[in-house]
């Protein structure tokens, strides 16, 4: 009935300096139930004190009912940490995990968004979904089993999606007696798979391997004395210190800004802004382009190109960057702002504003890798919708040129794609789009394939270079 105060935690969380600048870090977990993923997630939440007393009480009661931890177990040893991530009733009844679940915790260095992706069912669909917004993905391996086919599949998907940081957690290290030789062998296998994929050696991604025991907490939040041969950081320390994808990309001179809508009040100004002293005359002809910077940064005075499908790029100058009454001199991804331009072009939703001269010619021929997420298979000749940035266009699937064997990383011949397949296809668009290679542009290189009949999302698309363009070997067909 009263709110209990853990003052030590409050002081840690609210220590002014770290909190003011604490950044947001998104990561996903991939692995099966057997690898101890739920226990690891529960351990992270528990040890970072994201689990509140009432949730812990409920879990402790259930753990006791099920006899977890055995007689005499006390404290955290008596709690089945996996229950902390127990999902919907429909899932408990069927003993499965339906969907990606999002969880939140914070330390004094960072706020975390965790996309907890189920491993067994539809792992490609769930991993692709979780990884698409992740700065890092933690892949679990059972130390007793080592690198399995599923591990290769997970790493293959993560490489394709260009996840900036891949962390392989070798779990259950307690069950192999904290053996360094077992860990080193698995580590070497992981690095070998990484080399085959180009993961961790391509200058874009990195690959780390950490020995952990989710059940006992070794190297999860704090470094363990039971693995003296491991001198690297604990998992949480890794997550606290890795740069977020936006931090890695914001230095690039590749400003991209898909226009969401035009803000043009024409006299219909917000009453609260007017009451607050807004100069009504000065804003009578206000016109600005609202959107979220997907990449890079922009300054007032920068030369930019406005890209409109079917038209040549038009070059102009940024005269203002507005955000809710504040005039900014500079903005970076992923800020949502409104941009004013020097010339009165006709700019609309679906257009892209980009750093002048940095975008290649728009194209109606789309070569892409497709992660097929629907039970309805892809057939050549199908008519679909493509959503890219803020524009949706009709498209025709001209050909499917193969599908990826995720375990061997080889491309096999295929003329259709089924649920959880990843393949390559060529599409013809009804209007040209400013397509960019996903390898270098994680936002403007991504698109959705949508079913025009029921509106469902069919696939996640990653733009490849056109054949004949400078090709990257990992994306060649």
């Amino acid at each position, binding site marked *: 009935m009263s709110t209990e105060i853990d003052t030590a935690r409050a002081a840690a969380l609210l220590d002014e300096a770290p909190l003011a600048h604490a950044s947001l870090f998104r990561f996903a977990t991939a692995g099966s139930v057997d690898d101890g993923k739920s226990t690891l997630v529960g351990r992270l939440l528990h040890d970072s004190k994201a689990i509140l007393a009432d949730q812990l009480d409920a879990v402790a009661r259930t753990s006791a009912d099920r006899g977890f931890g055995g007689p005499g177990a006390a404290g955290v040893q008596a709690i089945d940490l996996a229950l902390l991530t127990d999902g919907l009733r429909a899932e408990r009844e069927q003993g499965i995990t339906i969907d990606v679940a999002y969880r*939140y915790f914070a330390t004094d260095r960072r706020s975390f968004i965790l996309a907890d992706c189920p491993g067994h069912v539809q792992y490609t669909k769930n991993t692709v979904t979780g990884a698409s917004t992740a700065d890092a993905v933690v892949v679990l391996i059972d130390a007793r089993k080592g690198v399995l086919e599923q591990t290769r599949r997970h790493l293959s998907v993560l490489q394709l999606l260009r996840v900036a940081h891949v962390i392989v957690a070798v779990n259950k290290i307690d069950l192999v007696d904290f053996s360094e030789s077992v860990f080193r062998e698995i580590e070497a296998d992981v690095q070998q798979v990484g080399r085959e994929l180009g993961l961790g050696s391509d200058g874009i991604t990195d690959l780390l391997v950490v020995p952990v025991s989710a059940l006992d907490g070794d190297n999860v939040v*704090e470094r363990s004395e039971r693995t003296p041969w491991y001198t690297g950081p604990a998992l949480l320390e890794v997550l606290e210190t890795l740069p977020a994808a936006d931090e890695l990309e914001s230095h690039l001179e590749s400003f991209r800004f898909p226009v*969401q809508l035009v803000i043009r*009040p024409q006299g219909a100004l917000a009453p609260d802004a007017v009451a607050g002293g807004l100069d009504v005359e000065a804003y009578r002809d206000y016109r600005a382009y609202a959107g979220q910077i997907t990449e890079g940064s922009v300054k007032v005075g920068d030369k930019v190109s406005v890209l409109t499908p079917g038209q040549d790029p038009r070059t102009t100058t940024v005269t203002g960057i507005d955000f809710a*009454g504040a005039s900014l001199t500079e903005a970076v991804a*992923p800020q949502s702002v409104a941009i004013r331009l020097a010339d009165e072009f006709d700019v609309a*939703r679906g257009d892209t504003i980009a750093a002048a001269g940095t975008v290649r010619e728009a194209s109606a021929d789309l070569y892409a890798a497709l992660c097929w997420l629907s039970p309805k298979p892809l057939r050549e000749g199908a008519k679909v919708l493509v959503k890219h940035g803020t524009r949706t266009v009709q498209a025709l699937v001209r050909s499917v040129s193969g599908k990826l064997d995720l375990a061997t990383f080889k491309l096999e011949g295929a003329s259709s794609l089924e649920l959880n397949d990843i393949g390559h296809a060529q599409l013809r668009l009804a209007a040209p789009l400013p397509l960019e290679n996903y390898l270098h542009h994680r936002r403007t290189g991504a698109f959705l394939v949508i079913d025009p009949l029921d509106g469902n999302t069919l696939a996640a698309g990653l733009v490849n270079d056109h054949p004949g363009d400078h090709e990257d070997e990992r994306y060649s067909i």
Partner: protein
Amino acid sequence: MSTYLTEEPTQVTDAAVSTRLSSLDTLESEAIHIIREVVAEFEKPALLFSGGKDSVVMLHLATKAFWPGKVPFPVLHVDTGHNFPEVIDFRDRTVERLGLKLVVGSVQEFIDSGELAERADGTRNPLQTVPLLDAIQRNKFDAVFGGGRRDEDKARAKERILSLRDEFGQWDPRNQRPELWNLYNGRHTVGQHVRAFPISNWTELDVWRYIERENIELPGLYYAHDREVFARDGMWRAVGEVSQPRPDEEVITKTVRYRTVGDMSCTGAVESAAATVRDVVIEVAASTITERGATRADDRISEAAMEDRKKDGYF
């Protein structure tokens, strides 16, 4: 306390600081992007506005998204008839200040007309679904913004930011569209509508820190005040027209505040001396009870209470 909480923060270079957004900046930007996408892609959106803190934050984000223009959609309130009077007053003042249109769906009217029956426990929160769907259909709203957050409970933890609802407003957790990158698929057929949750990724602490940072006004009952209360179901209930103590329940005056401001008949207060937004931020950061667990009787009915209500078309 774990040692990592007391370690020195990572030293970052000046160059990195200038391009690094705080977590609140990032969450604000994400929410504004979603609000603008929905406005651009839907014919007739509306925002659920109860005067509760999450809906007040949503409305604040909408004013920032379209500045200097007006918020381009109406607000919708499902009035249980058991609301705190000061919250209704706050709602009306806010709507007036921003020049918005207010649409009200009334639980009382549905009870009076016999289309809904009062529950034995007197709780009206679960009754909101019918008037909500009626208001959505009558006004032809095709997208409804809500202030739901994924940290609130395990059903919400799995719901999409754009959540498709069928003709009956039902949520089908097994048949959700994958949500990839920052590309939101809002396509829907006639009769379907979409619930949009732009602050899905915020925690209760984020909401309070944002209220502090943006100096957002809230109904006064979020802050500590003296109130006549009685104990029931492990919560402090306010004495009011629809919330009367039974003979065995002693009425006392306590310094309390509310963490959520729902229906008076099922929303409890917590003992608290947090009289300012700063006090509340500290209290929330230190709290060891989740907000729903502490103060909502309707979620305690069963562990799967929220999941059941969402499937039936609840927020």
